[in-house]
């Protein structure tokens, strides 16, 4: 019966990736067909596209180390947005409010240094992104390490 044939294909886990890839391909075609999607001009995180730049499309625009306008979804939540210390983890916020030592520890825990490097506004993302990296490193390291015993 056709159902049994389908079951046989589905139950073999070697076929899972081709199936998923097929689904992705179909959806990609649909996405291409629906393509002229409207670009919403009023972007929350504005980005200049400079067609002539050698860095296009990664050119963020503007001269380096000057003030870049930051727009926020919830300005009332982050009155200090745009500063390097815009987002502090609850622990560092506690330190900063109650002690004088925050300045010495800001680079000493995750969420501290990353704030300086990344966007200044989307604090939680900056924590989750490296977490993904750390976890993948942990898995890779464990598997590599285990090969030796």
């Amino acid at each position: 019966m056709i159902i049994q044939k389908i079951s046989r294909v589905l139950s073999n886990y070697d076929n899972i990736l081709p199936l998923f890839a097929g689904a992705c391909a179909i959806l990609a075609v649909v996405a291409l067909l629906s393509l002229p999607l409207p670009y919403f001009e009023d972007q929350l995180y504005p980005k200049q596209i400079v067609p002539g730049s050698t860095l296009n499309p990664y050119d963020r625009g503007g001269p380096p180390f000057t003030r870049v306008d930051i727009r926020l979804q919830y300005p009332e939540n982050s009155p200090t947005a745009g500063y390097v210390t815009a987002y502090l983890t609850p622990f560092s916020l506690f330190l900063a409010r109650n002690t004088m030592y925050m300045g010495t520890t800001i680079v000493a825990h995750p969420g501290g240094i990353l704030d300086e490097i990344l966007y200044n506004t989307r604090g939680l993302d900056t924590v989750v992104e490296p977490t993904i990296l750390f976890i993948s490193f942990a898995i890779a390291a464990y598997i590599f390490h285990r090969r030796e015993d």
Partner: protein
Amino acid sequence: MIAELLFGTFFGLLLLGIHRKVIARIQRRPGPPVWQEILHMLKFSFKTTWVPATASAALFVGVVLVAIGIWTAALAVVLSGGSLLIVFAVYMLHKIVEHGFGLSSGSPYGKFGGVRSVISAASEIPLFVSVAGIALFTRSLIISDIVAYQEVHGPLLLTVPLAGLAMYLVLLSKMPFGPFSIVESKELVSGYKTEHFGVWRAGLEVCNGLKTYVLLTTFLLVFVGTMPFLFLLVGMLVLVVSLSFVCALCPMLSPYDSVTVQTIIAGLMLAYVSILVVVS
């Protein structure tokens, strides 16, 4: 709420007993008395109980508590007219309870029951299709809003019959002895329940009674609308008898075929809802 909780447990178990009785009569067997499942629950609760040496003790016991707890929460949501999505979330998370029961003991039979319950995850997809079908018309998933909508526009069962059918199949895949109940198939002894004996099993029976009551109430509230309490009970009885007919007359599918059938149904339902979206 305590009264509803106790009533729901016992009435749900009674419905399961009626389910067994009807199946037996259709198959021309005498069958157990209708209160058999209640007796089961009480009988197991008096049996000597301990935790198997190979089991993961905290999970082995904890999952029984979780099983009763989530369905208590579902009953609370249904009674207070909360979000339908929470009831369906509990339905899906019941699967985790099955895994927990099956895998925590270390028994191969329980493990196979647990693995089968992972395979049969496709049975939930019709659920979301029926959610989408309902949301399309009522513009809300709060149960009290859905009930209010039906008071104005008539039962949803007439408006979106196929979404009702999807939900009916979802009920069917949780009924024992049905074509999709591969997790408790007899070649696995009792599937995921095998190693939970005595008090733990009695706790599981409480959960089963509550689950049956909550699911049937949800179906009637969402697709037929509000009705007097006695009518609600009669409606549940009718629903159970119809489910028993399906269970008695359909053979149990082999595990992967059951999944394929459910997936195909889900695909058809998806097509139906997209047609509804285009039309409306």
